């Protein structure tokens, strides 16, 4: 085992740190889940792109710099450490791009990826529907073949589409073979949200931001070149655990290390010089949260070493999702406990913790509820019987 970064990785870290220190906005940007905030975040994303930091692990021809997985981790640690803005492009970069890399045609890659990296085209995800949440195979929105026009006509409704009210395009699954059973007969489409027949209705989230949208599709035309993978093969395309070689299926440890560090700062700022500084119960909980953030970091390093050796992500990803999502809730709960009655406030600089708590509560729900993830761990990692 060698737990040190190489000189060139350290140099890369220094470079990232310096650039971020010089460029991260001094004042936090307005929430990226509002129209004005989204625009402000896109400006930031474009600066990031211009400096070569938008998608460090992508190949240069698509806007990246071909960074290794270790360099990607270093970048992420520095990014969160610097308190840099939330990435409003992340659903494209983390969820769509890996699939485009694996299943896209050369034309699709060239058309989609550079614009995504440059944040000139933004993407949201169209998976869930009113009757297809945890049970994604329950999708009812459909695509009807239009041979004459060389494409498909989409009908139906997508829901819980994060930042759908602000994005340009949506990737989503639609049922194209109504006679096929559940997981079969779905196709992966790339939809222009400005196209005729699309109606986007913003939906307010817990924290008051319009971070969700419902997307209604009524006879929306999508050309064949905007089908990703083969028609009726959308489930396999969407579910393939792809992109791990670019870190894109990993949830960056930097995020939780930075939150733990901010929590410790909060503790000192509120408790130092008071008797709370010696409150063992509080200290124990903060310490454990920090240990857990460290555990997450080292578990990631362990996994990345395997990925570098050529392994692919498997059901272990469910353990990772369980851990970070529940850690994130604990970190924010602790902060609110530190804040006491101030936790009720939604203005002032400390309110970011209250907002962060509400955001953290979505972690155990989205991308497969934690109940489903525990089933996956039990069935696929431990081998317990499904029935």
């Amino acid at each position, binding site marked *: 085992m060698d737990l040190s970064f190489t000189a060139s990785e350290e140099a890369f870290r220094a470079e990232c740190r310096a650039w971020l220190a010089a460029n991260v906005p001094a004042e936090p940007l307005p929430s990226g889940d509002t129209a004005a905030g989204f625009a402000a975040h896109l400006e930031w994303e474009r600066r990031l792109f211009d400096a070569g930091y938008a998608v460090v692990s992508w190949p240069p021809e698509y806007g990246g710099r071909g960074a290794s997985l270790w360099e990607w981790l270093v970048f992420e640690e520095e990014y969160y450490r610097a308190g840099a803005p939330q990435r409003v492009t992340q659903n494209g970069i983390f969820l769509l791009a890996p699939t485009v890399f694996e299943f896209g045609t050369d034309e699709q890659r060239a058309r989609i990826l550079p614009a995504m990296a440059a944040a000139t085209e933004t993407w949201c995800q169209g998976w869930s529907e009113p009757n297809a949440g945890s049970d994604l195979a329950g999708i009812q929105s459909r695509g009807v073949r239009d041979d004459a026009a060389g494409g498909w006509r989409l009908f139906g409704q997508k829901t819980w589409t994060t930042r759908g009210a602000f994005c340009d395009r949506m990737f989503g699954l639609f049922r194209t073979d109504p006679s096929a059973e559940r997981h079969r007969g779905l196709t992966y489409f790339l939809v222009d949200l400005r196209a005729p027949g699309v109606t986007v209705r913003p939906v307010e*989230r*817990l924290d008051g931001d319009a971070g969700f949208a419902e997307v209604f599709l009524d006879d929306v035309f999508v050309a064949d070149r905007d089908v990703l993978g083969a028609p009726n093969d959308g489930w396999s395309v969407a579910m393939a655990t792809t992109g791990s070689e670019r870190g894109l299926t990993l949830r960056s440890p930097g995020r939780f290390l930075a939150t733990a560090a901010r929590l410790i700062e909060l503790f000192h700022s509120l408790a130092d010089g008071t008797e709370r500084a010696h409150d063992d119960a509080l200290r124990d909980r903060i310490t454990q949260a920090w240990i857990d953030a460290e555990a997450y970091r080292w578990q990631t390093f362990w996994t990345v070493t395997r990925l570098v050796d050529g392994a692919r992500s498997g059901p272990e990803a469910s353990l990772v999702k369980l851990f970070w999502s529940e850690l994130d809730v604990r970190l924010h709960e602790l902060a609110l406990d530190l804040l006491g*009655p101030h936790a009720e*406030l939604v203005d002032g600089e400390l309110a970011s913790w209250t907002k962060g708590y509400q955001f953290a*509560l979505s972690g155990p*729900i989205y991308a497969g*509820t934690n109940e489903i993830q525990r089933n996956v761990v039990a069935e696929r990692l431990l081998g317990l019987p499904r029935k």
Partner: protein
Amino acid sequence: MRFAFTDEQLAFRDALRDLLTQECPPARVRDAWTNPDGRTGLWPALVEMGVVGLLAPASAGGLDGTEVDLVALLEETGRHAIAEPLVETAAVAIPLLRDAHDPRVADLAHGRIVATVAGRTDEFVVWADSCDLVIASDDSGVRMFARDAVTLEPRPAIDGARRLSWLGTDDTTGEAIGDADAAALVDDRGALGTAAQLLGLTERMIDMTVAYVRDRHQFGVPVGSFQAVKHHLANARLALEFARPLVYRAAVSIATLDPHRSAHVSAGKVQANEAAALAARVALQCHGAIGYTTEYDLHLFMKRAWALARAWGDTTTHRRRVGRAIL
């Protein structure tokens, strides 16, 4: 030993439940968020029914009731998430003024004026803008101010109906209305009232979630048929079952001025805080994304629960108070 409400107490509670079921649907709570005063407009009805003046003497228009009568009613108001300074006025200010033989107790009981109260460690008061009296306490005693005699600096709160203000009372115009013991009783009464409301909120969140998971289907079966969902909800129900008796017992302890009442109240507030926090987590998790939108009603109850679990003393504050009494 008889640890149960009387038929009369239950009948009063049921009447209030009927009223609130009719008059305080979630839409009304939602409206409170945008109403200028952040309130549900139920004060006249609560006065009329005798809820506000319950603890006031009959001679002042009250019902000469006790905290035991009141706790069942406050639980109902929690269930319906009414947005009114009812704990502050009915559970705290009225008995305070009653004990101080202050004639304004009748104005409060008749609904002519409304009071809000800050406990000894509170920095904020709630709904002060629409109250006439602001009561503030510290370790030396309790003082009462006309609303216009204090500095109020509004602070937006996570529960949009709760209009919080930072309270400045350097002002010396307040009247002394109670001594240090009265100040301690203010805290106990506020914590008891809040705990009772949390019980109602907890039950409401459980009920809403049960209804949702019975109805919502995924994988061809009701979501509520999954054992993980069942166990989440059973845990919330368990916490409620072992919170309620301690809150009721605390009500008796205040009503009888039991020398251990502060520890009893704190034990009740701890359990009610924890039950409500768990129920909120479970409710959101079992609802999934729909519970995460403000279009759905759950958030109204969840945010109230978050707020009240920290109001009038959070879990650590109250647990430590019990700890000092028993260790």
